[in-house]
């Protein structure tokens, strides 16, 4: 019985220690938008773990649909966006989603967002399941 308890405790310890190694989201912000519109959102994603993590899907309470996008420059100088299926956060690295680069596309806003409003974004991580972060409407 004691051995069983020790075994359970040993198994539980890494799970309790896990939050500090979870993928983290800092400084999330979103552009203001009218209800029904499309807008962009940005965040810094930090992976403190010695293993890489991958974001495979994103959703938000304020939008009907969310995608991960990257901004591209074509050979003729035009700029455009393309969706990306997943976003790898290398071990002990930080990936920054920022304007003119990687970003989140929020489709068909469920409500009007103005400066100071907030939106909860949910990231599906391959290693940690669903993680949430609060985004603030910055401008």
């Amino acid at each position, binding site marked *: 019985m004691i051995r069983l308890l020790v075994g359970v405790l040993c198994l539980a310890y890494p799970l309790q220690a896990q939050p500090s190694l979870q993928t983290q989201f800092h400084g999330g912000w979103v552009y203001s938008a*009218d209800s029904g519109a499309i807008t962009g959102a940005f965040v810094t994603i930090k992976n403190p773990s010695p293993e890489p993590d991958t974001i495979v899907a994103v959703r938000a309470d304020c939008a009907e649909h969310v995608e991960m996008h990257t901004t591209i420059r074509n050979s003729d100088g035009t700029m455009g966006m393309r969706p990306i299926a997943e976003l790898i956060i290398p071990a002990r690295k930080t990936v920054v989603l920022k304007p*003119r680069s990687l970003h989140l596309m929020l489709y068909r806003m469920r409500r009007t967002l103005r400066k100071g409003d907030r939106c909860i974004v949910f990231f599906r991580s391959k290693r940690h399941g669903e993680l949430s972060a609060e985004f603030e409407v910055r401008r």
Partner: protein
Amino acid sequence: MSRVWVRVLALLIGGLLLGCEATSPPSSSPLVATNGRTYVFPADLRGKVVVVSFIYTHCPDICRMTIGQMLEVWQRVGADTNIVFATVTLDPARDTLETLRQYAEVWQIPSHRWLLLTGTIADVERVHEMFGVIARKSYTERLPSGEEVYFIDHTDAVFLLDQQGIIRDRREGSSLDATAYANLVKRYAHSP
């Protein structure tokens, strides 16, 4: 002179003229603005220095950066009555007057001396051609609701027209230095 040489000469002169037209919009096109007025653009704005930008309202990244930069420039020069801002849609099919009005409200774009312009697809495309701006549909996203949303690959450029309608400056809109650009705009607004 043989006919062949006359044709060669004509082509050369034509080419030179086209070269000149690269800095001066060759013609104008009727566009309707969020203030409800129709402008033969850009001819109707001659006499003012005009800051011309191109955006579409479904664009969440580059165009928002451009509008953000334009707003910063506006804060520095907007009080000057010699200067007008004109923002032309890259997406006339979706950017109706009402859509542009809502966009102006969200972004708190001043309604006086800042025109958001749209029009028929043909008229708007003519303006794109005048400025050498490319706008082409790229990929289409099918939302879970079944709705299809398309995006546009486009030129990221703003133009400065002097009081004669000649293009004096062209640069990337989404990354410009607002202070330096405002100084340039002011210089043209008060040059003789």
